[in-house]
């Protein structure tokens, strides 16, 4: 390691390889050492002849030493950066380009060029980008002077629907991570009187009130919002007076979820003909420059876009982007499907759609798929029968 550094340092400083010939080579070496002219890799070639390496500044001081000791010094090779630079000394544009490169690299690396938002499920990315831009974080802004902590606090207040947010500036990229707040139903505090109402339509299967009076009977059809367990208990002997309690209990009901999907007997397939057009464009600082743009000759086509961003590693993104838009010519081919296959496909889709409607905690007790024909059109219908707790607390007098 030490020698590697030593060699790198010597390369940066530049050195020469010399041949020393004479009868008093030892004297030459001693005088060099005494005059602090650093010599290294002194290698004996044959009797009275050595090769050695020395610094450029040392080489300038060597002439009197050589004369004093009667040695002949020949220059064998020049190595190192100073000689490389010397070679290109007259090429000013080359140097200007090299300097400009480093300046530009630094300048470009001090701006924000991309924003990466992750963790948002319901909030739209564009909306978060807008809020970020409102707080001064947007592509093209100088990355210095951004107070991420203050921005985090402001974002929390402005968006409101998030439980956690973190903003990190990495290279030219801003990484925003978000955790959305879960919407939980309002819980009525224990000491406040309330009713238990129906969350959705259904047929009551079982009702057990632990507090309050059962307002519906088993087997009764209930509508959404209907009071199932009442928190108003009439006081005995009085018609008008009521005692208010915090009604509680479980109300199990049968509910139905259904979805419809039409059965399709033909399927359109788009096949590529093999002909395509490629458009090239360059995006510089969010400005699009069309380099190659050709006329569209196809009546039917699909497009595909590939973007290549100039990046160093993952985080240092530069505002240059190469966009290739490829248009493939396609022809539509109508293919007919067998009836059994078509029915099966539609039934499956309907079942999947219905399943998505079933809330968490509901138990599916029956699955039915029907086919109905209307005006010559066949439709698949999936009906899922469930048993679930439909009770929901609501303050008395509230909604």
């Amino acid at each position, binding site marked *: 390691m030490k020698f590697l550094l030593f060699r790198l340092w010597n390369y940066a400083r530049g050195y020469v390889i010399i041949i020393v010939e004479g009868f008093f080579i*030892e004297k030459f070496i001693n005088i060099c*050492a005494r005059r602090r002219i650093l010599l290294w890799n002194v290698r*004996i070639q044959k009797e009275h002849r050595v090769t050695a390496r020395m610094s450029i500044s040392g080489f300038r001081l060597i002439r009197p030493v050589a004369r004093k000791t009667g040695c002949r010094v020949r220059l064998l090779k020049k190595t190192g950066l100073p000689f490389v630079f010397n070679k290109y000394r007259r090429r000013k544009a080359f140097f200007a380009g090299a300097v400009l490169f480093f300046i530009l690299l630094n300048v470009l690396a001090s701006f924000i060029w991309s924003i990466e938002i992750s963790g948002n499920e319901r909030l739209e990315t564009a909306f978060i980008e807008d809020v970020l831009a409102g707080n001064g974080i947007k592509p093209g802004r100088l990355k210095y002077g951004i107070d991420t902590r203050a921005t985090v606090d402001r974002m929390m207040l402005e968006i409101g629907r998030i439980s956690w947010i973190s903003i990190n500036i990495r290279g030219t990229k801003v990484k925003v991570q978000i955790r959305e707040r879960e919407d939980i139903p309002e819980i009525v505090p224990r000491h406040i009187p309330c009713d238990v109402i129906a969350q959705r339509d259904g047929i009551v299967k079982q009702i057990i009130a632990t507090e309050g009076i059962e307002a519906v009977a088993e087997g009764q059809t209930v509508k959404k919002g209907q009071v199932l367990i009442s928190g108003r208990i009439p006081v005995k002997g009085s018609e008008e007076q009521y005692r208010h309690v915090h009604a509680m209990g479980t109300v199990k009901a049968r509910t139905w979820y259904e979805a419809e999907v039409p059965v399709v007997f033909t399927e359109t397939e788009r096949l590529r003909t093999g002909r395509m057009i490629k458009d090239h464009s360059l995006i510089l600082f969010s400005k699009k420059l069309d380099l190659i743009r050709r006329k569209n000759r196809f009546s039917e086509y699909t497009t595909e876009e590939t973007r290549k961003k100039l990046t160093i590693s993952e985080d240092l993104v530069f505002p240059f982007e190469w966009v290739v838009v490829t248009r493939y010519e396609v022809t539509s081919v109508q293919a007919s499907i067998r009836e059994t296959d078509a029915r099966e496909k539609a039934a499956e889709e309907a079942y999947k759609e219905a399943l998505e409607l079933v809330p968490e905690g509901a138990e599916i007790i029956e699955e039915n798929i029907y086919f109905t024909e209307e005006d010559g059109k066949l439709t698949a219908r999936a009906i899922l029968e469930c048993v679930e707790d439909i009770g929901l607390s609501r303050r008395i007098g509230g909604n």
Partner: protein
Amino acid sequence: MAKSNPGNTNAKPGKGRNRKGTIKKSFREKFTELLELPKDLLLDRPKLTLIGCRDMMIENYKSVLEYGVGYMRVKTGSGIVRITGNNLVIREISHDDIIISGTVHSVEFTDAG
């Protein structure tokens, strides 16, 4: 003699001067031993370090006396060190230290003082 030049007793020939010289030397040596000071620095002694048989470092050398094919003679405070070996190369030479690499066969002190 003592009467005419009392201050010049030290310059007496024979036993006295000899003893004086040895006393002076042993005093310095004793002094460094007493204080546990590094001998190579105070007594102008060389420090030879051999790493295997490939690299050798001589600190506190005086001068290179001879450098030939397969051997080298280095003058130090403890006499002349003669090194023989194959492909002996002076890796680095500065005012105080010399680093030699190659395959060292022997290291011997000649003309030890």
